[in-house]
Protein backbone atom coordinates (compact mmCIF):
# COMPACT_ATOMS: atom_id res chain seq x y z
CA UNK A 1 0.00 0.00 0.00
CA UNK A 2 1.28 3.47 -0.85
CA UNK A 3 2.38 5.67 2.02
CA UNK A 4 -0.41 8.19 1.57
CA UNK A 5 -3.40 5.87 1.34
CA UNK A 6 -6.44 7.72 2.71
CA UNK A 7 -7.29 5.19 5.41
CA UNK A 8 -3.75 5.14 6.75
CA UNK A 9 -3.64 8.93 6.86
CA UNK A 10 -7.00 9.04 8.59
CA UNK A 11 -6.11 6.34 11.11
CA UNK A 12 -2.85 8.07 11.96
CA UNK A 13 -4.50 11.43 12.40
CA UNK A 14 -7.35 10.13 14.49
CA UNK A 15 -5.24 7.77 16.63
CA UNK A 16 -3.38 10.72 18.13
CA UNK A 17 -6.54 12.12 19.65
CA UNK A 18 -8.47 8.91 20.40
CA UNK A 19 -8.41 7.86 24.05
CA UNK A 20 -9.72 4.38 23.44
CA UNK A 21 -9.97 1.85 20.64
CA UNK A 22 -13.73 2.44 20.70
CA UNK A 23 -13.09 6.17 20.34
CA UNK A 24 -10.82 5.57 17.36
CA UNK A 25 -13.41 3.30 15.78
CA UNK A 26 -16.16 5.86 16.25
CA UNK A 27 -14.01 8.63 14.77
CA UNK A 28 -12.96 6.46 11.83
CA UNK A 29 -16.50 5.40 11.00
CA UNK A 30 -17.68 9.00 11.15
CA UNK A 31 -14.83 10.09 8.90
CA UNK A 32 -15.39 7.44 6.23
CA UNK A 33 -19.18 7.32 6.36
CA UNK A 34 -20.40 10.89 6.40
CA UNK A 35 -21.15 12.06 2.89
CA UNK A 36 -20.83 15.71 3.83
CA UNK A 37 -18.21 17.99 2.38
CA UNK A 38 -16.70 20.49 4.78
CA UNK A 39 -17.67 24.04 3.78
CA UNK A 40 -14.25 25.50 4.57
CA UNK A 41 -11.59 24.03 2.29
CA UNK A 42 -8.45 25.33 0.64
CA UNK A 43 -8.14 23.02 -2.35
CA UNK A 44 -9.62 22.27 -5.75
CA UNK A 45 -12.45 19.81 -5.22
CA UNK A 46 -12.95 16.83 -7.54
CA UNK A 47 -16.21 14.94 -7.23
CA UNK A 48 -19.15 13.35 -8.99
CA UNK A 49 -22.27 15.21 -10.05
CA UNK A 50 -24.25 13.46 -7.31
CA UNK A 51 -21.73 14.48 -4.68
CA UNK A 52 -21.72 18.07 -5.91
CA UNK A 53 -25.39 18.32 -4.99
CA UNK A 54 -24.22 18.58 -1.39
CA UNK A 55 -22.40 21.78 -2.33
CA UNK A 56 -25.54 23.21 -3.88
CA UNK A 57 -27.45 22.42 -0.74
CA UNK A 58 -24.75 24.00 1.39
CA UNK A 59 -24.56 27.15 -0.68
Amino acid sequence: MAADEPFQVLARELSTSADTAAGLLEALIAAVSLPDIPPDVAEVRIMSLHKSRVLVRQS
Partner: protein
Amino acid sequence: MPWDRDLDPKSPAYGIASSQTRFNRVVAGPGTGKSFALKRRVARLLEQGADPERILPVTFTNVAAEDLQREMLQIGVPGCENIRGSTLHSLCMRILRRQSVLDALGRIPRPLNKFEIEPLLYDLPKNFGDKRGRNKRIRAYEAAWARLQHETPGYAQNPDDAAFEDALVAWLTFHEGMLIGEIIPYVYRYLKDNPAAPERSLYDYVLVDEYQDLNKAEQGVVDLFCDAANLCIVGDDDQSLYSFKFAHPVGIREFSTTHRPTTEHQIIECRRCPTRVVQMANSLIAHNRDREPRQLTPMPANGPGNIAIKQYQTLEDEAVGIADLIADLVDNQGYAPEEILVLAQRRSVGNPIHDALTGRNIPSKSYYQEGALENHSAQERLAILKLVVNPQDRIALRWLLGFGSGDFRSGGYARIRTHCERTGTRPWDVMNALADGALQIPHTHHLVARFKGIRNEISELGQAGKCSAVCGAVAWRASGCR
Protein backbone atom coordinates in the same frame (compact mmCIF):
# COMPACT_ATOMS: atom_id res chain seq x y z
CA MET B 1 -35.63 41.29 13.49
CA PRO B 2 -39.25 41.36 12.29
CA TRP B 3 -39.80 38.47 9.89
CA ASP B 4 -41.01 40.75 7.08
CA ARG B 5 -38.32 43.42 7.28
CA ASP B 6 -37.34 44.58 3.76
CA LEU B 7 -39.59 41.95 2.20
CA ASP B 8 -41.68 42.97 -0.78
CA PRO B 9 -45.24 41.72 -0.09
CA LYS B 10 -45.44 40.73 -3.74
CA SER B 11 -42.26 38.61 -3.63
CA PRO B 12 -42.33 34.79 -3.54
CA ALA B 13 -40.31 34.89 -0.30
CA TYR B 14 -43.05 36.93 1.39
CA GLY B 15 -45.70 34.51 0.15
CA ILE B 16 -43.78 31.52 1.48
CA ALA B 17 -43.05 33.15 4.83
CA SER B 18 -46.58 34.40 5.41
CA SER B 19 -48.66 31.45 4.16
CA GLN B 20 -51.11 30.13 6.78
CA THR B 21 -52.17 27.07 4.78
CA ARG B 22 -51.44 23.71 6.38
CA PHE B 23 -49.56 22.42 3.33
CA ASN B 24 -47.18 24.47 1.22
CA ARG B 25 -45.26 23.39 -1.86
CA VAL B 26 -42.34 25.52 -2.96
CA VAL B 27 -40.84 24.76 -6.36
CA ALA B 28 -37.51 26.54 -6.40
CA GLY B 29 -34.76 26.25 -8.99
CA PRO B 30 -31.06 26.34 -8.10
CA GLY B 31 -29.76 29.59 -6.64
CA THR B 32 -33.19 31.17 -6.31
CA GLY B 33 -33.02 32.00 -2.61
CA LYS B 34 -35.27 29.35 -1.11
CA SER B 35 -33.20 29.16 2.11
CA PHE B 36 -33.78 32.86 2.63
CA ALA B 37 -37.54 32.38 2.20
CA LEU B 38 -37.62 29.43 4.61
CA LYS B 39 -35.70 31.37 7.24
CA ARG B 40 -38.25 34.15 7.06
CA ARG B 41 -41.03 31.59 7.42
CA VAL B 42 -39.42 30.16 10.56
CA ALA B 43 -38.90 33.69 11.89
CA ARG B 44 -42.62 34.41 11.45
CA LEU B 45 -43.60 31.19 13.19
CA LEU B 46 -41.39 32.03 16.16
CA GLU B 47 -42.57 35.62 16.36
CA GLN B 48 -46.14 34.39 16.41
CA GLY B 49 -45.48 32.08 19.35
CA ALA B 50 -44.59 28.70 17.85
CA ASP B 51 -42.63 26.39 20.18
CA PRO B 52 -39.13 26.16 18.59
CA GLU B 53 -38.75 22.56 19.75
CA ARG B 54 -41.85 21.64 17.76
CA ILE B 55 -40.44 23.03 14.53
CA LEU B 56 -38.54 20.44 12.46
CA PRO B 57 -36.44 21.50 9.49
CA VAL B 58 -35.38 18.41 7.50
CA THR B 59 -32.24 18.84 5.43
CA PHE B 60 -30.36 16.59 3.03
CA THR B 61 -26.98 16.49 4.79
CA ASN B 62 -25.61 16.93 8.28
CA VAL B 63 -23.57 19.92 7.15
CA ALA B 64 -26.74 21.51 5.75
CA ALA B 65 -28.38 20.92 9.14
CA GLU B 66 -25.45 22.62 10.89
CA ASP B 67 -25.59 25.50 8.41
CA LEU B 68 -29.28 25.86 9.07
CA GLN B 69 -28.57 25.95 12.80
CA ARG B 70 -26.17 28.85 12.28
CA GLU B 71 -28.59 30.64 10.00
CA MET B 72 -31.39 30.23 12.52
CA LEU B 73 -29.22 31.92 15.14
CA GLN B 74 -28.73 34.81 12.72
CA ILE B 75 -32.43 35.56 12.45
CA GLY B 76 -32.23 36.72 16.05
CA VAL B 77 -35.76 35.77 17.05
CA PRO B 78 -36.07 34.50 20.63
CA GLY B 79 -36.19 30.71 20.59
CA CYS B 80 -34.31 30.34 17.31
CA GLU B 81 -31.40 28.72 19.17
CA ASN B 82 -33.67 25.84 20.15
CA ILE B 83 -34.56 24.77 16.62
CA ARG B 84 -32.80 21.54 15.71
CA GLY B 85 -32.38 20.83 12.01
CA SER B 86 -31.85 17.19 11.10
CA THR B 87 -31.49 14.85 8.18
CA LEU B 88 -34.31 12.38 7.82
CA HIS B 89 -31.89 9.51 8.40
CA SER B 90 -30.46 11.02 11.59
CA LEU B 91 -33.92 11.63 12.94
CA CYS B 92 -35.03 8.09 12.12
CA MET B 93 -31.84 6.63 13.63
CA ARG B 94 -32.55 8.47 16.89
CA ILE B 95 -36.04 7.01 16.90
CA LEU B 96 -34.75 3.51 16.24
CA ARG B 97 -32.35 3.74 19.18
CA ARG B 98 -35.18 4.32 21.63
CA GLN B 99 -35.63 1.23 23.71
CA SER B 100 -39.38 1.03 23.16
CA VAL B 101 -38.86 1.12 19.40
CA LEU B 102 -36.10 -1.48 19.56
CA ASP B 103 -38.35 -3.73 21.60
CA ALA B 104 -41.12 -3.32 19.04
CA LEU B 105 -38.86 -4.10 16.10
CA GLY B 106 -36.59 -6.78 17.57
CA ARG B 107 -33.57 -5.54 15.64
CA ILE B 108 -30.19 -4.08 16.60
CA PRO B 109 -29.39 -0.83 14.73
CA ARG B 110 -25.68 -1.56 14.14
CA PRO B 111 -25.26 -0.10 10.63
CA LEU B 112 -23.27 -1.96 7.97
CA ASN B 113 -20.50 -0.21 6.09
CA LYS B 114 -20.89 -0.59 2.36
CA PHE B 115 -18.09 -3.17 2.09
CA GLU B 116 -19.68 -5.29 4.83
CA ILE B 117 -22.63 -6.05 2.54
CA GLU B 118 -20.37 -8.21 0.36
CA PRO B 119 -20.63 -11.47 2.37
CA LEU B 120 -24.36 -10.95 2.70
CA LEU B 121 -24.66 -11.06 -1.09
CA TYR B 122 -22.89 -14.44 -1.14
CA ASP B 123 -24.80 -15.84 1.83
CA LEU B 124 -28.24 -15.14 0.38
CA PRO B 125 -29.77 -18.15 -1.41
CA LYS B 126 -28.66 -18.47 -5.01
CA ASN B 127 -32.24 -18.70 -6.32
CA PHE B 128 -32.58 -14.91 -6.01
CA GLY B 129 -30.49 -14.31 -9.09
CA ASP B 130 -26.90 -13.29 -9.50
CA LYS B 131 -25.03 -10.92 -7.23
CA ARG B 132 -26.22 -7.86 -9.16
CA GLY B 133 -29.82 -9.03 -9.03
CA ARG B 134 -29.62 -9.57 -5.28
CA ASN B 135 -28.10 -6.13 -4.83
CA LYS B 136 -30.90 -4.56 -6.82
CA ARG B 137 -33.50 -6.38 -4.80
CA ILE B 138 -31.87 -5.13 -1.59
CA ARG B 139 -32.35 -1.57 -2.84
CA ALA B 140 -36.02 -2.27 -3.55
CA TYR B 141 -36.36 -3.66 -0.02
CA GLU B 142 -34.72 -0.48 1.32
CA ALA B 143 -37.38 1.52 -0.52
CA ALA B 144 -39.99 -0.55 1.36
CA TRP B 145 -40.77 -2.30 -1.95
CA ALA B 146 -42.20 0.92 -3.41
CA ARG B 147 -40.19 0.89 -6.62
CA LEU B 148 -42.55 3.31 -8.34
CA GLN B 149 -44.19 6.49 -7.10
CA HIS B 150 -47.70 5.05 -7.34
CA GLU B 151 -46.78 2.02 -5.20
CA THR B 152 -47.50 2.11 -1.50
CA PRO B 153 -44.49 1.56 0.76
CA GLY B 154 -44.92 -1.35 3.09
CA TYR B 155 -44.50 -5.06 2.64
CA ALA B 156 -43.37 -7.19 -0.29
CA GLN B 157 -46.21 -7.69 -2.76
CA ASN B 158 -45.08 -10.89 -4.48
CA PRO B 159 -43.85 -14.25 -3.15
CA ASP B 160 -40.34 -13.86 -4.56
CA ASP B 161 -39.82 -10.48 -2.89
CA ALA B 162 -41.35 -11.79 0.34
CA ALA B 163 -39.02 -14.81 0.38
CA PHE B 164 -36.07 -12.57 -0.37
CA GLU B 165 -37.00 -10.23 2.47
CA ASP B 166 -37.30 -13.19 4.86
CA ALA B 167 -33.80 -14.41 3.94
CA LEU B 168 -32.30 -10.94 4.09
CA VAL B 169 -33.82 -9.99 7.43
CA ALA B 170 -32.90 -13.39 8.91
CA TRP B 171 -29.26 -12.79 7.92
CA LEU B 172 -29.26 -9.27 9.34
CA THR B 173 -31.04 -10.32 12.52
CA PHE B 174 -28.63 -13.20 13.10
CA HIS B 175 -25.65 -10.91 12.49
CA GLU B 176 -27.12 -8.20 14.70
CA GLY B 177 -26.81 -5.52 12.04
CA MET B 178 -28.91 -3.19 10.00
CA LEU B 179 -28.58 -1.81 6.51
CA ILE B 180 -28.35 1.96 6.39
CA GLY B 181 -31.20 1.81 3.91
CA GLU B 182 -33.38 -0.18 6.32
CA ILE B 183 -33.67 2.70 8.72
CA ILE B 184 -36.39 4.49 6.79
CA PRO B 185 -38.59 1.44 6.06
CA TYR B 186 -38.42 0.33 9.68
CA VAL B 187 -39.37 3.74 11.01
CA TYR B 188 -42.12 3.95 8.41
CA ARG B 189 -43.58 0.62 9.50
CA TYR B 190 -43.18 1.47 13.19
CA LEU B 191 -45.00 4.79 12.78
CA LYS B 192 -47.66 3.35 10.47
CA ASP B 193 -48.41 0.35 12.68
CA ASN B 194 -48.47 2.41 15.89
CA PRO B 195 -50.95 5.27 15.46
CA ALA B 196 -50.43 6.28 19.09
CA ALA B 197 -46.64 6.43 18.81
CA PRO B 198 -45.49 9.69 20.45
CA GLU B 199 -43.12 10.31 17.52
CA ARG B 200 -46.12 11.02 15.29
CA SER B 201 -47.03 14.14 17.19
CA LEU B 202 -43.67 15.61 18.12
CA TYR B 203 -43.92 18.54 15.71
CA ASP B 204 -46.32 21.35 14.77
CA TYR B 205 -44.32 22.55 11.79
CA VAL B 206 -42.19 20.41 9.45
CA LEU B 207 -40.12 21.90 6.64
CA VAL B 208 -38.48 19.57 4.12
CA ASP B 209 -35.75 20.66 1.73
CA GLU B 210 -34.95 18.83 -1.54
CA TYR B 211 -38.23 16.94 -1.47
CA GLN B 212 -37.73 15.61 -5.00
CA ASP B 213 -34.92 13.38 -3.72
CA LEU B 214 -37.16 11.54 -1.27
CA ASN B 215 -38.45 8.15 -2.29
CA LYS B 216 -41.97 7.05 -1.51
CA ALA B 217 -41.05 5.52 1.87
CA GLU B 218 -39.25 8.70 2.92
CA GLN B 219 -42.22 10.78 1.84
CA GLY B 220 -44.39 8.43 3.90
CA VAL B 221 -42.24 8.94 7.02
CA VAL B 222 -42.55 12.71 6.61
CA ASP B 223 -46.33 12.40 6.35
CA LEU B 224 -46.45 10.26 9.48
CA PHE B 225 -44.45 12.89 11.37
CA CYS B 226 -47.15 15.34 10.31
CA ASP B 227 -50.26 13.74 11.80
CA ALA B 228 -51.53 17.20 12.67
CA ALA B 229 -48.56 19.32 11.72
CA ASN B 230 -48.10 21.93 9.03
CA LEU B 231 -45.85 20.72 6.24
CA CYS B 232 -43.86 22.93 3.90
CA ILE B 233 -41.88 21.11 1.21
CA VAL B 234 -39.27 22.67 -1.02
CA GLY B 235 -37.71 21.15 -4.11
CA ASP B 236 -37.35 21.08 -7.85
CA ASP B 237 -38.52 18.16 -9.93
CA ASP B 238 -35.95 19.15 -12.55
CA GLN B 239 -33.17 18.32 -10.09
CA SER B 240 -34.21 14.75 -9.28
CA LEU B 241 -31.03 12.65 -9.40
CA TYR B 242 -31.71 9.77 -7.07
CA SER B 243 -33.67 7.31 -9.18
CA PHE B 244 -31.25 4.56 -8.05
CA LYS B 245 -32.86 4.69 -4.61
CA PHE B 246 -36.33 4.91 -6.21
CA ALA B 247 -36.72 8.63 -5.57
CA HIS B 248 -39.13 10.00 -8.12
CA PRO B 249 -39.95 13.59 -9.14
CA VAL B 250 -43.63 12.64 -9.35
CA GLY B 251 -43.70 12.93 -5.55
CA ILE B 252 -43.21 16.67 -5.61
CA ARG B 253 -45.33 17.09 -8.73
CA GLU B 254 -48.32 15.37 -7.15
CA PHE B 255 -47.91 16.83 -3.68
CA SER B 256 -50.75 19.29 -4.18
CA THR B 257 -53.21 16.55 -5.03
CA THR B 258 -52.09 14.21 -2.24
CA HIS B 259 -52.04 16.98 0.39
CA ARG B 260 -55.07 19.26 0.44
CA PRO B 261 -55.28 22.17 0.70
CA THR B 262 -51.85 23.13 -0.57
CA THR B 263 -50.65 26.61 -1.38
CA GLU B 264 -48.29 26.69 -4.35
CA HIS B 265 -45.17 28.86 -4.51
CA GLN B 266 -42.58 29.19 -7.22
CA ILE B 267 -39.19 30.93 -7.22
CA ILE B 268 -37.60 31.00 -10.62
CA GLU B 269 -35.07 33.83 -10.66
CA CYS B 270 -31.60 32.27 -10.60
CA ARG B 271 -29.36 34.59 -8.62
CA ARG B 272 -26.35 32.29 -8.57
CA CYS B 273 -25.37 31.58 -12.16
CA PRO B 274 -24.22 33.58 -15.20
CA THR B 275 -26.95 34.13 -17.73
CA ARG B 276 -25.53 31.79 -20.36
CA VAL B 277 -25.41 28.96 -17.84
CA VAL B 278 -29.06 29.57 -16.99
CA GLN B 279 -29.96 29.52 -20.68
CA MET B 280 -28.12 26.24 -21.16
CA ALA B 281 -29.83 24.78 -18.11
CA ASN B 282 -33.23 25.81 -19.45
CA SER B 283 -32.45 24.20 -22.76
CA LEU B 284 -31.31 20.98 -21.11
CA ILE B 285 -34.12 20.55 -18.60
CA ALA B 286 -36.72 21.27 -21.28
CA HIS B 287 -36.04 17.68 -22.39
CA ASN B 288 -37.19 16.24 -19.05
CA ARG B 289 -40.35 14.20 -19.46
CA ASP B 290 -43.63 15.10 -17.76
CA ARG B 291 -42.21 18.22 -16.17
CA GLU B 292 -44.22 21.23 -15.20
CA PRO B 293 -43.46 23.90 -17.80
CA ARG B 294 -41.38 26.74 -16.38
CA GLN B 295 -38.14 28.53 -17.15
CA LEU B 296 -35.45 29.76 -14.82
CA THR B 297 -35.04 33.51 -15.18
CA PRO B 298 -31.44 34.71 -15.51
CA MET B 299 -30.15 37.77 -13.65
CA PRO B 300 -28.39 40.05 -16.15
CA ALA B 301 -26.22 41.48 -13.39
CA ASN B 302 -24.43 38.12 -13.17
CA GLY B 303 -22.97 38.56 -16.65
CA PRO B 304 -22.84 35.90 -19.38
CA GLY B 305 -20.02 33.79 -17.89
CA ASN B 306 -17.35 31.86 -19.77
CA ILE B 307 -18.09 28.48 -21.27
CA ALA B 308 -15.66 26.40 -23.30
CA ILE B 309 -16.06 22.95 -24.80
CA LYS B 310 -12.77 21.07 -25.12
CA GLN B 311 -12.16 17.57 -26.35
CA TYR B 312 -9.04 15.42 -25.94
CA GLN B 313 -7.81 12.27 -27.58
CA THR B 314 -6.99 10.41 -24.36
CA LEU B 315 -7.83 10.55 -20.68
CA GLU B 316 -4.22 11.44 -19.91
CA ASP B 317 -4.40 14.39 -22.32
CA GLU B 318 -7.66 15.47 -20.72
CA ALA B 319 -6.17 15.37 -17.21
CA VAL B 320 -3.19 17.44 -18.34
CA GLY B 321 -5.43 19.89 -20.18
CA ILE B 322 -7.72 20.41 -17.18
CA ALA B 323 -4.78 20.76 -14.81
CA ASP B 324 -3.23 23.37 -17.12
CA LEU B 325 -6.52 25.25 -17.24
CA ILE B 326 -6.77 25.25 -13.45
CA ALA B 327 -3.13 26.25 -13.08
CA ASP B 328 -3.83 29.25 -15.31
CA LEU B 329 -6.85 30.22 -13.21
CA VAL B 330 -4.84 30.00 -9.99
CA ASP B 331 -1.50 31.40 -11.13
CA ASN B 332 -2.58 34.09 -13.59
CA GLN B 333 -6.20 34.96 -12.99
CA GLY B 334 -6.32 35.29 -9.22
CA TYR B 335 -8.69 32.45 -8.38
CA ALA B 336 -8.18 30.50 -5.16
CA PRO B 337 -8.15 26.69 -5.44
CA GLU B 338 -11.23 26.41 -3.23
CA GLU B 339 -13.19 28.40 -5.81
CA ILE B 340 -12.68 25.67 -8.40
CA LEU B 341 -14.78 22.51 -8.69
CA VAL B 342 -14.08 19.62 -11.06
CA LEU B 343 -16.99 17.29 -11.83
CA ALA B 344 -15.73 13.90 -12.98
CA GLN B 345 -18.10 11.16 -13.99
CA ARG B 346 -16.14 8.50 -12.15
CA ARG B 347 -13.12 8.02 -9.95
CA SER B 348 -10.96 6.72 -12.77
CA VAL B 349 -11.39 10.10 -14.45
CA GLY B 350 -10.99 12.15 -11.27
CA ASN B 351 -7.77 10.46 -10.14
CA PRO B 352 -5.55 11.45 -13.10
CA ILE B 353 -6.79 15.04 -12.75
CA HIS B 354 -5.96 14.93 -9.05
CA ASP B 355 -2.48 13.57 -9.86
CA ALA B 356 -1.90 16.20 -12.55
CA LEU B 357 -2.86 18.97 -10.12
CA THR B 358 -0.60 17.52 -7.44
CA GLY B 359 2.23 17.55 -10.00
CA ARG B 360 1.66 21.30 -10.42
CA ASN B 361 1.63 21.87 -6.65
CA ILE B 362 -2.02 22.86 -6.72
CA PRO B 363 -3.83 21.54 -3.66
CA SER B 364 -6.74 19.28 -4.59
CA LYS B 365 -8.92 16.66 -3.01
CA SER B 366 -11.01 13.85 -4.45
CA TYR B 367 -14.39 13.37 -2.81
CA TYR B 368 -15.24 10.00 -4.18
CA GLN B 369 -16.98 8.37 -1.27
CA GLU B 370 -15.17 5.08 -1.50
CA GLY B 371 -11.86 6.92 -1.02
CA ALA B 372 -10.78 5.86 2.44
CA LEU B 373 -12.26 2.38 2.39
CA GLU B 374 -11.77 1.49 -1.23
CA ASN B 375 -9.04 -1.09 -0.81
CA HIS B 376 -9.33 -4.39 0.98
CA SER B 377 -6.46 -3.68 3.33
CA ALA B 378 -8.27 -0.64 4.74
CA GLN B 379 -11.48 -2.64 5.04
CA GLU B 380 -9.61 -5.38 6.90
CA ARG B 381 -8.08 -2.85 9.31
CA LEU B 382 -11.46 -1.39 10.10
CA ALA B 383 -13.03 -4.83 10.59
CA ILE B 384 -10.19 -5.85 12.91
CA LEU B 385 -10.65 -2.69 14.95
CA LYS B 386 -14.36 -3.45 15.23
CA LEU B 387 -13.53 -6.86 16.67
CA VAL B 388 -10.98 -5.35 19.06
CA VAL B 389 -13.72 -3.07 20.36
CA ASN B 390 -16.35 -5.81 20.38
CA PRO B 391 -15.32 -9.44 19.72
CA GLN B 392 -19.00 -10.31 19.40
CA ASP B 393 -19.43 -8.01 16.40
CA ARG B 394 -20.90 -10.63 14.09
CA ILE B 395 -20.85 -8.49 10.96
CA ALA B 396 -17.12 -7.76 11.29
CA LEU B 397 -16.34 -11.40 12.09
CA ARG B 398 -18.37 -12.62 9.11
CA TRP B 399 -16.54 -10.26 6.77
CA LEU B 400 -13.11 -11.18 8.11
CA LEU B 401 -13.81 -14.91 7.93
CA GLY B 402 -14.70 -14.63 4.25
CA PHE B 403 -12.04 -12.08 3.32
CA GLY B 404 -9.59 -13.41 0.73
CA SER B 405 -11.97 -15.98 -0.70
CA GLY B 406 -13.80 -15.60 -4.01
CA ASP B 407 -17.16 -16.53 -2.49
CA PHE B 408 -16.50 -15.30 1.06
CA ARG B 409 -16.39 -18.96 2.14
CA SER B 410 -20.18 -18.95 2.11
CA GLY B 411 -20.51 -22.74 2.02
CA GLY B 412 -18.53 -23.41 5.20
CA TYR B 413 -19.97 -20.37 6.89
CA ALA B 414 -23.53 -21.59 6.28
CA ARG B 415 -22.66 -24.62 8.43
CA ILE B 416 -21.34 -22.37 11.21
CA ARG B 417 -24.48 -20.25 11.13
CA THR B 418 -26.74 -23.30 11.14
CA HIS B 419 -24.90 -24.60 14.18
CA CYS B 420 -25.24 -21.26 15.97
CA GLU B 421 -28.94 -21.01 15.23
CA ARG B 422 -29.59 -24.59 16.32
CA THR B 423 -27.63 -24.34 19.57
CA GLY B 424 -28.15 -20.66 20.41
CA THR B 425 -24.40 -20.07 20.49
CA ARG B 426 -22.53 -17.09 19.14
CA PRO B 427 -20.30 -17.21 16.05
CA TRP B 428 -17.20 -16.00 17.90
CA ASP B 429 -17.64 -18.68 20.57
CA VAL B 430 -18.25 -21.39 17.99
CA MET B 431 -15.16 -20.36 16.04
CA ASN B 432 -13.13 -20.41 19.24
CA ALA B 433 -14.35 -23.91 20.02
CA LEU B 434 -13.47 -25.06 16.51
CA ALA B 435 -10.04 -23.43 16.67
CA ASP B 436 -9.33 -25.09 20.03
CA GLY B 437 -10.50 -28.50 18.79
CA ALA B 438 -13.40 -28.58 21.23
CA LEU B 439 -15.90 -28.77 18.38
CA GLN B 440 -15.93 -30.34 14.94
CA ILE B 441 -18.03 -29.12 11.99
CA PRO B 442 -17.27 -30.68 8.58
CA HIS B 443 -15.94 -28.51 5.73
CA THR B 444 -14.99 -25.56 7.92
CA HIS B 445 -11.22 -26.01 8.06
CA HIS B 446 -10.52 -22.96 5.81
CA LEU B 447 -12.66 -20.81 8.07
CA VAL B 448 -10.92 -22.16 11.17
CA ALA B 449 -7.48 -21.45 9.73
CA ARG B 450 -8.58 -17.93 8.88
CA PHE B 451 -10.10 -17.46 12.33
CA LYS B 452 -6.86 -18.44 14.06
CA GLY B 453 -5.10 -15.61 12.22
CA ILE B 454 -7.81 -13.13 13.19
CA ARG B 455 -7.76 -14.26 16.81
CA ASN B 456 -3.98 -13.96 17.02
CA GLU B 457 -4.03 -10.44 15.68
CA ILE B 458 -6.75 -9.32 18.04
CA SER B 459 -4.90 -10.92 20.92
CA GLU B 460 -1.71 -9.07 19.97
CA LEU B 461 -3.56 -5.79 19.76
CA GLY B 462 -5.22 -6.49 23.10
CA GLN B 463 -1.81 -7.09 24.66
CA ALA B 464 -0.52 -3.80 23.33
CA GLY B 465 -1.55 -2.45 26.71
CA LYS B 466 -2.50 1.16 26.64
CA CYS B 467 -5.35 2.24 24.43
CA SER B 468 -3.05 4.62 22.61
CA ALA B 469 -0.82 1.69 21.70
CA VAL B 470 -3.81 -0.21 20.28
CA CYS B 471 -4.84 2.83 18.27
CA GLY B 472 -1.30 3.35 17.07
CA ALA B 473 -0.96 -0.29 16.05
CA VAL B 474 -4.17 -0.20 14.05
CA ALA B 475 -3.11 3.02 12.32
CA TRP B 476 0.42 1.72 11.70
CA ARG B 477 -0.72 -1.59 10.36
CA ALA B 478 -3.06 0.23 8.02
CA SER B 479 0.07 1.05 6.08
CA GLY B 480 0.70 -2.64 5.60
CA CYS B 481 3.88 -2.49 7.74
CA ARG B 482 3.42 -5.64 9.76
